[in-house]
């Protein structure tokens, strides 16, 4: 069965510092991986995805993520955090062979201080 794990409920980072939000996944076939962000009282907004190709993918708002097949990880990163990045971040996976809907992790709250 497909699953996604986000081991940290909350990540704290100072403005200007690099940030990492961790995600590991489990699928039977090749994964399609996604990151979404959710602001209070809003729906989820798509940030970036990995389908195939370069292991480092770039997305919206300066975010990027690194796919690591051997570690089954897809960590979200940003070189320099902004206070406005404070939000709830979700990792999601789809097994391309199963063709199912996205399976989401439980989310990680990013909290930044100025």
């Amino acid at each position, binding site marked *: 069965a497909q699953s996604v794990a986000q081991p940290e409920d909350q990540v704290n980072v100072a403005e200007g510092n690099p940030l990492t939000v961790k995600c590991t996944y489990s699928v039977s076939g090749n994964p399609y991986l996604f990151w979404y962000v959710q602001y209070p009282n809003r*729906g989820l907004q798509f940030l970036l*995805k990995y389908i195939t190709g370069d292991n480092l993918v770039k997305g919206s708002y300066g975010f990027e993520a690194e796919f690591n097949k051997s570690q089954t990880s897809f960590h979200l990163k940003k070189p320099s955090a902004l206070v406005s990045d404070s939000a709830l971040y979700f990792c*999601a996976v789809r097994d*391309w062979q199963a063709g199912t*809907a996205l399976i989401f992790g*439980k989310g990680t709250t990013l909290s930044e201080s100025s």
Partner: protein
Amino acid sequence: EAGVAQSPRYKIIEKRQSVAFWCNPISGHATLYWYQQILGQGPKLLIQFQNNGVVDDSQLPKDRFSAERLKGVDSTLKIQPAKLEDSAVYLCASSLDQGTLGAPLHFGNGTRLTVT
């Protein structure tokens, strides 16, 4: 491009009452999803439509939840009767044809349901 529209934004009902949510997906998106997001958890898929057909409703509590997408465009999700544990945000999402597996989901702002 207009986004996914959902209504109402908020709903408060008593247990055992019924409630319905409406969703209008992005124009041209054949696939529509309903997710349930309980506080502190990630969204959980309830049902997935491809046009007006159901692709996956394995996690839909069919004794109380129902959903339809009669004309392959907008959709309604109904709960009857509601239980306290149904308190959650109900998110609608849409995407291009299911065959495009790399296509991201586009979410509406959700309906926050409180059951008292």
